[in-house]
């Protein structure tokens, strides 16, 4: 049976909503993800990313709208769809009564895989996750980064065509994050379709071919990271910390120096073509900011522009 070809999106959502009682977590989203693509969902906590992920994982059903995964309806073909995908949930949840090795092996059994296949893959995946020497330990004794790697290894036991990662690197130290990213690149190179939610801009820029920005259950922008930045932000940003003065009051006076400006509680962001030139002009005009930072625009700025909020809020 062949339901996925290049013409059929791996996931297609049209007007998908998810309601929990009175609360509408997802308010009608549309997107299509092509085979082999790395697709990101970017947004602050409570934007509806996790609810969307659970629907795309064929674990929860949409309240309304149409959703297909591998061209199949998850309400009817749930088990078949789940058999072809791997899920890395936000929380690492393991079978705490079993060792690392048995956690992986048992997972393989849930997918109905033959025992010899499972044994080969378990050894391979423990290697992949850099956990071979901990194979016989209980999961409880692992560090946060190790648990995360084990969750990813577990999600690969069935050789998924689509891997769904919900906040894969939240709570990890930089070294562990880079190790994880490297593993994800390898999977992408092998042709696995990736769906990633994150509220880290650098992660989205690094990993995603294309992404959507979600806010309050809706998709507010869609595109390649570079394209989104080009469309919704200026080339560069000049950040000013003005010390004791009230940022609100100075905003009016600074307006003429930038295409656009954002006033945050602790700093003012000037969206400009060249941060160098703007800073020079500010100095000429007699401004003496306490601290300045010049940088290229990032997805963070896109998000701020689209939602009026920073991601960490």
């Amino acid at each position, binding site marked *: 049976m062949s339901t996925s070809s290049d013409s059929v999106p791996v996931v297609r959502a049209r007007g998908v909503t998810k309601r929990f009682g009175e609360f509408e977590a997802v308010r009608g989203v549309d997107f299509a993800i092509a085979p082999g693509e790395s697709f990101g969902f970017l947004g602050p906590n409570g934007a509806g990313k996790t609810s969307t992920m659970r629907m795309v994982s064929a674990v929860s059903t949409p309240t309304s709208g149409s959703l297909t995964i591998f061209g199949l309806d998850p309400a009817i073909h749930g088990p078949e769809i*789940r058999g072809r995908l791997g899920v890395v949930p936000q929380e690492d949840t393991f*079978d705490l009564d079993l060792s690392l090795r048995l956690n992986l092996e048992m*997972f393989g059994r849930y*997918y109905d895989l033959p025992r010899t296949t499972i044994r080969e893959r378990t050894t391979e995946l423990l290697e992949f996750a850099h956990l071979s020497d901990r194979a016989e330990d209980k999961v409880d004794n692992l560090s946060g980064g190790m648990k995360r790697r084990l969750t990813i290894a577990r999600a690969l036991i069935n050789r998924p065509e689509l891997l769904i990662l919900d906040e894969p690197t939240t709570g990890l130290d930089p070294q562990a994050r880079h190790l994880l990213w490297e593993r994800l690149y390898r999977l992408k190179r092998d042709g696995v379709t990736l769906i990633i939610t994150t509220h880290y801009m650098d992660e989205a820029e690094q990993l995603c071919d294309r992404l959507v920005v979600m806010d309050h259950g809706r998709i507010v922008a869609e595109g390649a990271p570079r394209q989104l930045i080009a469309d919704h932000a200026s080339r560069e940003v000049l950040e000013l910390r003005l010390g004791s003065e009230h940022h609100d009051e100075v905003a009016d006076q600074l307006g003429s120096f930038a295409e656009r400006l954002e006033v945050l509680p602790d700093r003012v962001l000037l969206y400009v073509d060249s941060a160098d030139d703007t800073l020079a002009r500010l100095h000429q005009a007699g401004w003496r900011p306490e601290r300045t930072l010049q940088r290229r625009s990032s997805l963070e700025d896109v998000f701020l522009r689209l939602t009026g909020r920073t991601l960490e809020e």
Partner: protein
Amino acid sequence: MSRVLPVLGSRRARHVVERNALFYRSQWLMFASGFVEPLFYLLSIGIGLNHLVGSLTVGSHRVSYAAFVAPGMLATSAMNGAVIDSVFNPFFRLKISHAYDSILATPLDVDDIALGEALWALTRAGLYAVSFVGCMFLLGDTSSPWAILEIVGALATSFAFSALGLAACTYLRSWQDFDLITLVSLPLFLFSATFFPLSLYPRALATVVAFSPLYQSATLLRGLNSGQFDGWMILRLGYLVALGLVGLAVAARRFRRILSP
């Protein structure tokens, strides 16, 4: 689709049984203790009270007190085993370790998990029931070869209580709530005509006791133990199986609400 029964899970439920078997492989001592347990029951109450009480009438037979109380103990043991297996472990995996959440990412469905846990409790109970009936035979507490059918009766008992226990565990909020389980199972144990005949209860209480699944189980097993068959047995067996099916349906619904809202 490979559904055994609609709403009650598929063949994939067997992997949940397999998982529990895998776990108990490393807990063999705990597992093995279940086989010794019948001796505790039978020797403590049976032998102890046998001398004080003498013999009793079951149907048209006179039997020793030990032979009277043994099926009651078998019923109680089937209930306790089922409750422990279906309440404690699933509660931990449902609400503490969230191990079920990760299983739901696989082809298994919520119904499969509920059915799998009930089947596991049943498997374990079946093994213990065989051991229990064997001990009764060795100690001379059986008075008919039909006593072998008590294994079936004990399985029905385990099924009823494991399914009810599984449903109950979904309502528990913390470890403190486990007292509620004791609050139900202890009176069931004390007031289900497991130690003495229903005829000794006041009439009003006896009517209430008739609804106790443990009473129905003990009475069914007692009849089988002395090889006296009657039409009520089918009803008693049916009652236990029906409770089990209702419990399983409730458990599956509650599991779905918690795991996959």
